[in-house]
């Protein structure tokens, strides 16, 4: 029986990866204690936080999640350089956000669940760049199917509309549990335009209840608020699983900031130490440990855990902990169109052109995935319309026109792992006195070249075909908040942190599943792959505990 002092398995982090692993272990009869740095909040509170925000802040997904002082997370629309949490350097800003609450960052994710393709996992072999994964798509496929049924991921049954594409020889072992969500009118129009250029705008594989309740949660009612929070729980977020985990016997300790993982002389992990909101320290013992804190907090915790035997931090004989930080650098095209599209009908991300992420050009430059962002446009255009000095009917007409006839199309790129894209512990301290993370980042020429010769020209062609009368394309990459790479997976302990089961090479009873383990980013959002790795790790943990 787990209690607050010890458990069979201690899981640090109650995000989607931690929660998926916890459920698998509980079902196998293993006792689980979960430590969560931040607070447990109700959906009601988050929804009202959002509604009470000034219009200017409604576009920042972190705004309705004010951090607890002891569990800071980046707050880009509020931070001054003085109190910023992430200490960023390098030509590109690794300005990530994540939520340190029980339930983690899936509180505000869009639900997008693109699988990797076989090519995505063999960049080195096929294109001579980046790293190969330690296993192939066929190994990961059954885990993808399990994740789809666990979270409730909907998608098309027509292989011509599925991802990975039929051409890569990847038949699905199980159909999607729910059919795709309908396109809104803007997406429908975008699909037609894309088709006229020979591209398929396919339904996004997404963790959202499509036309029916699933997982004891209601169906999507198109409130278009997925980011920052689904008011009804139709979108899967890890917070929805917490009640069920507790009914299965999990002990969840909120407001518990892990600051040190304790290893013994033999390299076995013995305990995790955490600080509570009164700055008191607690020690939790266990047989096996999982760090699922997200791609910034996990490597940070390993580095903070350095001791005499591990001067570079735990699990770090490879010196790769905190290195190879990756994301999906994105460029947004804001278009003014000559006809109404009406983004904002349905979920916020509901379709995408994925085929442009694949191809032989990947030996030269990154691929890109294009998506028509389906956020309702009022908050993007209202201030601009009012600024034009219009009144009365002209003002109404302008707001209506701009809401209907503007759209964002996002180009999301892949990035290669570089040792110098690195997270270290800065000299600055947070409220608890723990070091704030410092991250140096450069998206790299591989990605910059893609923007120059491939993705932006492609975006422009599509914008023209859409009838854009005005086009503004970002010149600097923004971050997608898909944090990958800091505890990278490989066969060789000299250049990787974890093995194919996300077990730390250096510590037999320490698992580091999630985005940090991903060896390549591809272009599609990383969550489904993270959870698939989590389930794979969970299977390994069950086998390992069975022998223990």
């Amino acid at each position: 029986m787990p209690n607050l002092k010890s458990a069979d398995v201690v899981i640090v982090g109650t995000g989607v990866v931690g929660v998926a692993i916890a459920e698998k272990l509980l079902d196998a009869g293993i006792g689980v204690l979960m430590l969560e740095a931040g607070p447990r909040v109700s959906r009601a509170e988050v929804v009202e936080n959002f509604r009470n925000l000034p219009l200017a802040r409604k576009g920042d997904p972190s705004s309705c999640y004010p951090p607890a002082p002891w569990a800071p997370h980046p707050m880009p629309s509020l931070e001054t350089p003085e109190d910023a949490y992430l200490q960023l350097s390098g030509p590109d800003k690794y300005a990530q956000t994540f939520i340190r609450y029980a339930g983690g960052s899936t509180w505000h994710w869009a639900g997008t669940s693109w699988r990797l393709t076989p090519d995505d996992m063999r960049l080195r072999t096929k294109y001579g760049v980046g790293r190969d994964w330690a296993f192939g798509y066929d190994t990961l496929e059954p885990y993808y199917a399990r994740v789809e049924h666990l979270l409730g991921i909907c998608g098309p049954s027509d292989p011509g509309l599925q991802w990975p594409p039929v051409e890569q020889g990847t038949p699905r072992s199980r159909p999607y549990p729910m059919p795709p969500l309908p396109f809104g009118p803007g997406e429908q129009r975008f699909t037609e335009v894309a088709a006229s250029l020979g591209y398929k705008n396919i339904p996004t594989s997404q963790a959202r209840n499509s036309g029916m309740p699933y997982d004891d949660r209601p169906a999507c009612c198109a409130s278009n608020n997925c980011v920052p929070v689904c008011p009804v729980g139709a979108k899967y977020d890890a917070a929805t699983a917490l009640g069920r985990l507790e009914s299965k016997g999990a002990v969840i300790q909120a407001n518990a900031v892990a600051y040190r993982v304790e290893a013994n002389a033999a390299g076995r992990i013995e305990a995790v130490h955490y600080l509570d909101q009164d700055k008191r320290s607690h020690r939790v013992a266990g047989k096996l440990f999982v760090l699922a804190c997200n791609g910034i907090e996990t490597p940070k915790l390993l580095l903070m855990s350095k001791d005499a035997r591990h001067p570079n931090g735990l699990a770090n004989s490879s010196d790769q902990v905190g290195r190879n930080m990756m994301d999906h650098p994105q460029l947004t095209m804001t278009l003014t169109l000559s006809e109404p599209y009406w983004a904002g009908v349905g979920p916020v991300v509901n379709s995408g052109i994925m085929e442009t992420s694949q191809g032989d050009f990947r030996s030269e430059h990154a691929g890109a995935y294009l998506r028509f962002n389906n956020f309702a446009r009022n908050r993007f255009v209202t201030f601009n319309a009012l600024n034009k000095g219009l009144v009365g009917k002209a003002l109404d007409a302008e707001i209506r026109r701009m809401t209907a006839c503007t759209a964002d199309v996002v180009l999301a790129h892949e990035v290669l792992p570089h040792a110098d894209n690195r997270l270290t512990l800065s000299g600055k301290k947070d409220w608890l006195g723990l070091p704030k993370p410092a991250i140096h980042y450069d998206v790299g020429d591989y990605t910059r070249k893609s923007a120059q010769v491939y993705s932006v020209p492609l975006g422009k062609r599509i914008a023209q075909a859409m009838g854009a009368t005005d086009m503004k394309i970002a010149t600097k990459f923004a971050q997608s908040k898909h944090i990958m790479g800091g505890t990278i997976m490989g066969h060789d302990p000299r250049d990787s942190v974890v093995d194919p089961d996300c077990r730390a090479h250096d510590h037999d009873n320490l698992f580091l599943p999630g985005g940090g383990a991903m060896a390549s980013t591809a272009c599609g959002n990383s969550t489904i792959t993270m959870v698939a790795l989590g389930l794979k790790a969970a299977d390994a943990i069950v086998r390992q505990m069975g022998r223990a």
Partner: protein
Amino acid sequence: MKAFLHRVIPVVLGLVLCASAGASRRFDAATIERGRYLATASDCIACHTAHHNGAPMAGGLVMSSPVGDIVSTNITPSKRHGIGDYTEQQFADALRKGIRADGQPLYPAMPYVSYAALTDPDVHALYAYFMEGVPAVEKAAPHTSLPFPMNVRMSMKVWNALFLDPQPLARTEGRSAQWLRGRYLAEGAAHCSTCHTPRGALMQEKKELNMAGSQVGQWYAPNITPHPTAGIGSWSEAELAQYLRTGRLEGKSQAAGSMAEAITYSFSHLEQADLDAIAHYIKSLPPVDLGETGTPGAPRFGQGQAGHALGEVRGQGYAAGMAGPQLGAQVYSANCASCHGASGEGTRDGYYPSLFHNSATVGKTNLIAAILLGVDRKTADGHVFMPPFGDQPNALNRLSDKEVAALANYIGVKFGGGDASVKPEDIAVIRQGGPRSPLLTMARVGMAIGVLVLLALAFTIVRRRRGKVGA
């Protein structure tokens, strides 16, 4: 000749095989199918199947009754754990007399007082279905053990003698075939009165108040007599039939709780002619008004209007809203408005119902139950689902008794034409399974008194004898 035999022998062999196969099946497909339809009309599955992937008809559903929890039995044809060994007579006795094969009475949670109306051919068809149409499940259902003295089943024999009418459908003249069919289904198989008829002190149905409304566990089965204000007099027969088929009448009412279940598993599968017949019969009942719910004199269907209290909650922060005097408005905005609209109007397409012009918000009980338990109703049109807000693992938000009471008062006043009379104690009662019957306490007190009387009697007799001896 050889060619002839080559043709005939396979045919003869085939016939012999068919006959011997037929010998192990006692019932033909048509009878079993009729039994299946009658079992659907009788909604056996709703009680005799555990929720969350229970095997059909294998029992194990725990039902909260005012005198304790009753667990349904395995009625699959398993010989060890079900009714596989029942003769047709034993099956008929269980169904219509409430007597098990071992002679012990059943509790009237099993609506045998209604099923007593079933005809012999229909009982036969049901028997055929349960013997050969239902897969046997080799798993025992847990036993029911009510608190003493309710666990003394033999007392049910007295109850049955008082309240079980072996011919519950009175003879009648000049009624149409449709009306007779409707009565047979409504009073018999569909056992509407089991929920909708108020009960007396010994938990018997009060026949003179037939269908006038009754509390059943956490939900209130409303007045469905054709009374114009207290009942469904404002509904046409066609509307009632539509409600039974779909569970929804836009701008009037929708089914939740046990009625949603009845629609999902039973009514939505019945033939249109049978639904029309039931509607026709129900609309012919004597109108009754118990004066219990809603505004006296006003039907529960057209009440209320759109409205909001956004000024009370917007711009000041959630914590302030939850701590302030407008708790109900804050809870509504944070938990309900995303589906039911900021002003209670629902969605434009009417899928998510408005909370005004909605009988669910008139009167306390069903509003509280809907908030705590949600709505779950499946028909051919789709799966309607409102999440619960109680203590369930999938509660969208766990609301306290105080929060639910404030919310119910807000909704009741804003949209239900009512007053703010809900208290946190009312929520606690529904949350724990509904009002408890005093019957249990009365029985125990009654028995205690009885024992004291006997002791006093015995004491007096002994004293007298001693006196005589001594004299």
